[in-house]
């Protein structure tokens, strides 16, 4: 079971999908979902899969975002180097000296180049802003202009690896881990008779503001929604009060905008089915698609479940595969219980 899930996670994460350019990731995810129900990709790049009783009164929306943080080419310099900006909240500290893939006319291997430390004021202490970095493709200006255009996307390259136990590392686990949980949930419900309608929304552009979830929720008009994202797993230097734990199961969110009865139901189900969990309490916005979905049209009762993840927004994000399985089970139990 864990093996299958790891393969699903690696397959989803391997497809590139920066904000506004999710088509490859969308196609891969849609292919996985097409066995479970009618699946389409909408005009905003969202993947939508419909399961269960689509004419029922209760229509549940499960959301996870498809996109991942990256970079975008802004300019080709006269020496063939590319200038870039952030596309989503990329952490500049992981960029210097990193191998990247530039998605030009063909995928190109680049290296993020910084000023050598002896030629900068702060030496190795400071990490320059992204607009002062450049990408070296080893190409002449003419070659670079032929193969790359401003607007092309860039991803930091890192291998997908199995770590000890059931932990894995890959770029894009934020939030392909959530996508995998929803796909697994859909698979668990595939042969069940549901009294409610269920729509899976794998939404675009979360890292750039949540426009995919905003428009998706508007179109789909759900009566209830659960946003599934990743959140912080305990690691050194991070306040334990803000964290879940790798292998500790889904983090069930509580925040002013989240619906308390739905949250309580998730907590009850976790206890009843012996699914490990922790709670994530937020005093304001959740910083996830839940914020967009909850205020769609006249308002949608919304809950939030997060998968604990270390090193968010770096190319070496780490999760425990087991947490994805737990999350899928919890969501499936929730959907089964809606009349």
């Amino acid at each position, binding site marked *: 079971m864990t093996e299958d899930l790891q393969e699903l996670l690696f397959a989803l994460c391997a497809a590139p999908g920066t904000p506004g350019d999710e088509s490859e990731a969308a196609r891969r995810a849609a292919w996985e979902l097409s066995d479970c129900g009618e699946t389409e990709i909408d005009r905003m790049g969202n993947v939508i899969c419909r399961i269960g009783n689509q004419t029922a009164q209760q229509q549940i929306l499960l959301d996870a975002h498809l996109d991942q943080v990256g970079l975008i080419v802004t300019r080709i310099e006269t020496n063939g180097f590319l200038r870039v900006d952030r596309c989503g909240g990329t952490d500049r500290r992981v960029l210097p000296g990193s191998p990247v893939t530039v998605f030009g006319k063909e995928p190109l291997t680049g290296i993020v180049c910084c000023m050598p430390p002896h030629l900068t004021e702060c030496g190795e202490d400071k990490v320059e802003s992204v607009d002062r970095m450049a990408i070296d493709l080893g190409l002449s200006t003419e070659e670079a202009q032929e193969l790359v255009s401003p607007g092309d996307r860039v991803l930091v390259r890192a291998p997908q690896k199995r*770590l000890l136990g059931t932990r894995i590392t890959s770029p894009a686990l934020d939030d392909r881990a959530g996508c995998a949980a929803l796909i697994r949930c859909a698979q668990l419900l595939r042969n069940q008779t549901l009294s409610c309608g269920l729509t899976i929304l794998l939404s675009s552009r979360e890292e750039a503001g949540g426009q995919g979830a905003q428009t998706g929720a508007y179109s789909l008009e759900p009566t209830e929604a659960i946003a599934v994202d990743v959140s*912080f797993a305990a690691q050194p230097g*991070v306040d334990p009060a803000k964290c879940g734990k790798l292998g500790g199961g889904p983090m069930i969110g509580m925040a002013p905008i989240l619906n308390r009865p739905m949250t309580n139901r998730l907590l009850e189900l976790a206890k009843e089915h012996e699914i490990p969990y922790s709670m994530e309490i937020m005093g304001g916005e959740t910083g996830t698609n839940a914020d967009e979905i909850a205020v769609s049209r006249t308002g949608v009762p919304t809950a939030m479940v997060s998968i604990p993840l270390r090193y968010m927004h770096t190319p070496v994000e780490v999760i425990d595969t087991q947490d994805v399985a737990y999350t899928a089970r919890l969501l499936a139990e929730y959907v089964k219980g809606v009349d």
Partner: protein
Amino acid sequence: MADLALLERLCCARGISGCEEEIREIILEEIRPYADCVEVTPLGNLLAFKKGANRAKTKLMLNAHMDEVGMTVTYIEDNGLLRFATVGGIDRRVLCGKPVTVGKGIPGVIGAKPIHLLTSEEREKSVPVKDLYIDIGALSRQEAEEAVSPGDPVTFDSLFDTAHGMIKSRALDDRAGCAILIDLLKKPLAYDMLFAFVVQEETGLNGSKTAAYIADPDAAIVVESTTAADVAGVPEDKQVCHVGSGPVLSFMDRRTIYDRAYYQMAFDAAKETGVSCQAKQAVAGGNDAGAIHVSRGGVRTVAVSLPCRYLHSAVSLISQKDFHEAETLIERLAEKIAGGE
């Protein structure tokens, strides 16, 4: 021409300073059928002697180092995370968020605190090595100890890309030099020559110091890679040398004043073979020449280097043209020196 497949094999093998066994095994396997005599020295250098058509008039040693920069595990925390120290000179800005391999192939990553939880000051500061750690997925010290131990070597994960005439890879410093020497050794030689594949260059030239003592040559050619700062934002006068402009010849660096006549002879060798070359336009850095030229009673030493960007990071870059031209130049230069010019 040295084979890119061999270079890939050398670059993808792992060998930080003091742990060069894997590299030495590959080189031994490659050269054994061609060398007349091979020897592994007490510190782990691989010395190979090959007879040429003629006895050498000047006893020449060609030198390349097998080791690469990396890290080593220093301590395992209760929570299963690994503390580490750098081995060789690594710009600490390149460590954060990198995939690595620990010990005998245990996958890991160098983590970073999530950007969402950083102060604005932290966002633009590089993380000191003492605050970094490697995560191998262990959730406890005991789980980690079953897979790794303090002292285990750590390397950046590999990548090898040869598109558009370039080579982008980990450890080009100095596996590219090793590949050139291996290829030369496989060819028929005009004169007898010694080939030294040495250990521990990055941590103090210990391999070349002892190799030169044992080999006792009259002259040496050090085959290295050197920093090319011809990158975005660096003014022309600070660029040192250029990728694609041919092998780099040094007159002086931080450790060595090179033999003047041999330095000139290297330019002649380039001209005679029709390859491009360039002078290293800075007195910076240092390499095995520093130890070799003062070995015993002194060794006349010259360095031929590949211009290399992003030396000592997870991925560096050289040009295929420079790589092949360096070999052509070194072959001619070696003939001239061993022939007594």
